[in-house]
């Protein structure tokens, strides 16, 4: 072990995060390795290790001959301070080697608030933060992940973006980089060639010009780069790689269990949900294969909990078959199955009871909005009756805690909609009185609201976010309307959501802001401990950028979106149609009921497997 590291570790919290050596961490003999990849997650070990996408791509890359992919996470503040004091650069967990020794530095970026951490990690690694300052072919700095459907705010810092699911494109890209090094291409030559790979977006090959009002006037691709880059997907989930042998952390992480991915995409079409649009189309994995992976992964890792993962697990058609198949194994091995999220309209109490196997903790539902009108606007096709019926069954079955998630600030929201949330809580309370077999145990109803952030590639990408004052007024309104002591109300801190709204639909003018805010000390801004709204305000002011331009402005139909060179497969015409239907509070049926023609079906050759 590095001597500096050994000296530092006794002084930092949770040192096990920084040493590697976990079961199933991939070690390779450097004599057989010609491509070293530092796979970075711009957040802590506990968060990054909980990311299934990273585990998949770690396996995919390490299955390549001559390629060694290692993990890198952002150090917590105490560790960063110690590293900087000791002059110790950012290192990879497997070998302990500094990142500068690597050929490719790849970031998995799932959320906008991680942007400052990317800059900080590059700096900690002693890598120049600007793409233009890095003139050599190595280290190549690339990024992927959901937040990269709009990579413009970090366009100056990364060399290229890999769009969509990475199983295939990552291999193609790594091979191209290997060829480039072997044949001595320049970085510019490599980037030109990479831009021709489907799914690769090279920001430096696109010239963006702006109108006087700050909106995008034109986006001009250069050097043969495509006008539109479409995301990549894996067509057949039964053939896609699943990490059966996966790293078992020696210290507790957020998702400390087997994540069994049942399907990708979502049939629902909630208009606010970026994941619901950009992961289209739906592709199911066969239930018998899921069961096999689940058993093998438990056997190898020793985990005793499996989460049945997807965007909406109760929509998996053979969910009962899968649970039946796993039942005996789970009983014998003391393995629990868990569901990440429930829909109030089709969740089966019977199934829940079986999964819980005697434990009855809480249930969580996300009605998202307080009135039927507003739920129709956002196309969350769940009715109050369905929610109450589900709660009734749950209470009758012995559950005594329900969590309800809502968003404030949804398009067209009125005070009536806000107060509707309190009304729902009261009615759920009423159901408990009607249904609970034993009222002595009491009931806990938790209402949580977050602040709606309009995201690119959704039907609400044209919508403004309400102002901070207005959001806080609505929180207060709801707080005063919830009077019962049994109902706990939690609301999301407002400042982060403002910045998230700015970054989510930002353009390249925000690169300067990001650099400024990072130089002022922003690092792990997804964490309340480190986030500072004042710091962001200073950065906006110094860069002459008005955050309201990005967060609080309604876009016109003909406005060119900063991310319009990126396609998730869902057409902009479809999104606009959904936007117009939302204005009229008209719902759209789910994909299983009938195809609404979003365009993502073309990614799988015309017909989706819903």
């Amino acid at each position: 072990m590095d001597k500096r590291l050994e000296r530092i570790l006794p002084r930092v919290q949770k040192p096990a995060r920084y040493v590697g050596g976990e079961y199933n961490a991939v070690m390779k003999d450097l004599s057989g390795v010609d491509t070293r990849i530092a796979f970075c997650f711009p957040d802590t070990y506990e968060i990054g290790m909980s990311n299934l996408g990273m585990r998949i791509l770690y396996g995919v890359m390490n299955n390549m001959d001559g390629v060694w992919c290692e993990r890198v996470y952002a150090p917590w503040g105490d560790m960063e301070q110690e590293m900087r004091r000791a002059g110790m650069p950012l290192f990879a967990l497997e070998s302990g080697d500094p990142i500068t020794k690597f050929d490719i530095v790849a970031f998995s970026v799932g959320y906008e608030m991680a942007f400052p951490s990317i800059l900080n990690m590059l700096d900690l690694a002693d890598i120049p933060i600007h793409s233009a300052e890095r003139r050599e072919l190595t280290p190549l700095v690339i990024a992927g992940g959901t937040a990269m459907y709009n990579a413009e705010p970090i366009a100056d810092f990364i060399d290229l973006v890999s769009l969509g699911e990475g199983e295939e494109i990552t291999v193609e890209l790594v091979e191209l980089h290997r060829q480039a090094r072997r044949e001595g291409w320049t970085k510019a030559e490599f980037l030109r060639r990479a831009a021709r790979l489907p799914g690769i977006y090279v920001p430096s090959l696109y010239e963006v010009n702006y109108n006087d009002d700050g909106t995008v006037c034109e986006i001009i691709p250069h050097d043969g780069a495509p006008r539109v880059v479409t995301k990549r997907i894996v067509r057949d989930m039964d053939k896609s790689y699943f990490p059966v042998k996966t790293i078992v952390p020696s210290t507790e992480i957020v998702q400390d269990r087997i994540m069994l991915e049942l399907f990708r995409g979502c049939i629902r079409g909630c208009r606010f949900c970026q994941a619901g649009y950009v992961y289209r189309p739906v592709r199911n994995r066969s239930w018998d294969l899921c069961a096999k992976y689940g058993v093998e992964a438990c056997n190898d890792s020793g985990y005793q909990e499996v989460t049945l993962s997807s965007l909406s697990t109760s929509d998996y058609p053979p969910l009962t078959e899968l649970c039946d198949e796993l039942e005996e194994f789970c009983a014998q091995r003391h393995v629990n199955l868990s569901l990440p999220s429930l829909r109030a309209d089709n969740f089966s109490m019977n199934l829940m009871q079986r999964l819980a196997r005697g434990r009855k903790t809480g249930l969580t539902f996300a009605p998202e909005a307080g009135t039927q009108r507003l739920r129709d606007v956002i196309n969350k096709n769940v009715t109050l009756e369905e929610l109450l019926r589900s709660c009734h069954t749950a209470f009758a079955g012995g559950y005594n805690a329900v969590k309800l998630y809502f968003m404030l600030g949804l398009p067209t929201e009125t005070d009536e909609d806000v107060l509707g949330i309190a009304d729902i809580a009261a009615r759920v309370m009423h159901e408990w009185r009607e249904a609970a077999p034993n009222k002595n145990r009491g009931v806990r109803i938790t209402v949580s609201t977050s602040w709606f952030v309009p995201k690119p590639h959704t039907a609400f990408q044209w919508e403004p976010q309400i102002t901070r004052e207005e959001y806080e007024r609505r929180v207060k309104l709801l707080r005063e309307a919830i009077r019962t002591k049994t109902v706990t109300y939690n609301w999301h801190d407002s400042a982060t959501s403002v910045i998230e709204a700015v970054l989510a639909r930002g353009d390249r003018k925000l690169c300067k802001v990001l650099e400024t805010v990072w130089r002022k000390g922003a690092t792990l801004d997804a964490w309340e401990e480190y986030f500072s709204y004042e710091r962001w305000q200073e950065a906006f002011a110094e860069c002459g950028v008005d955050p309201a331009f990005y967060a609080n402005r309604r876009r016109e139909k003909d406005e060119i979106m900063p991310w319009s060179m990126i396609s998730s497969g869902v057409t902009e015409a479809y999104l606009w149609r959904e936007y117009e239907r939302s204005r009229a509070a008209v719902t759209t049926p789910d994909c299983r009921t009938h195809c609404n023609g979003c365009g993502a079906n073309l990614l799988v050759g015309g017909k989706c497997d819903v």
Partner: protein
Amino acid sequence: MSKLRLLFVKEKQASYISHLDLIRTFQRAFPRTDLEIKHSQGYHPHPIMSIVLPLPVGQSSDCELLDFEVTQDTDGSGIVEHLNTGMPNGLRVLECYEARRPIRELVYLRAIVELEYDNGVPEGAVGQLRELFARQNLVIQKRTKRKELADVDIAPMIRRIELTEGEGLIRTDVTVQAQNPGLNPQLLGKAIERYLPELTPDFIRVRRTAILDAEEKDFR
């Protein structure tokens, strides 16, 4: 039903695994064996196992013990190999056997404490430290469970101590009381800091090398 005991090594990266995480790591390794670990009763059944004398985070050890019960009758043979296929780097099970001796017979532990001096070992340091550790009283401040500072005399807890000078370090081979109360060998550094601050080492590395009974024979 059998009561079994594991003897294992904890070193390298694994020396940073905390006590609770170590238990979790073993819990995940046990399904690799055919043994059915006795589980607690109640809503959240968990396998019952206990680590004897938990090692402070950051220290290494050649002789850690873990006790557990299984529902089968077994002498534990053959399970070491199974367990070792699922271990993080630095964690290695050496033996598994029936737990016969009660833990209260574990009286001393022996450790190598390396006192590192980045600018070389100061002149005469070994002699001064020998004298220090030969004192009748060595009072240091220690945090109690209530997070208050309390004075503790560690001299009676040191059974024997031997110091030798090496390259840039002093090697201390120390035998201390293991429990009721036990002494963390790392605290020798605290005593130096208090009585001979100019000899405070730049870094202290601890490795547990033996656990002993009252006769100073290996406890198993």
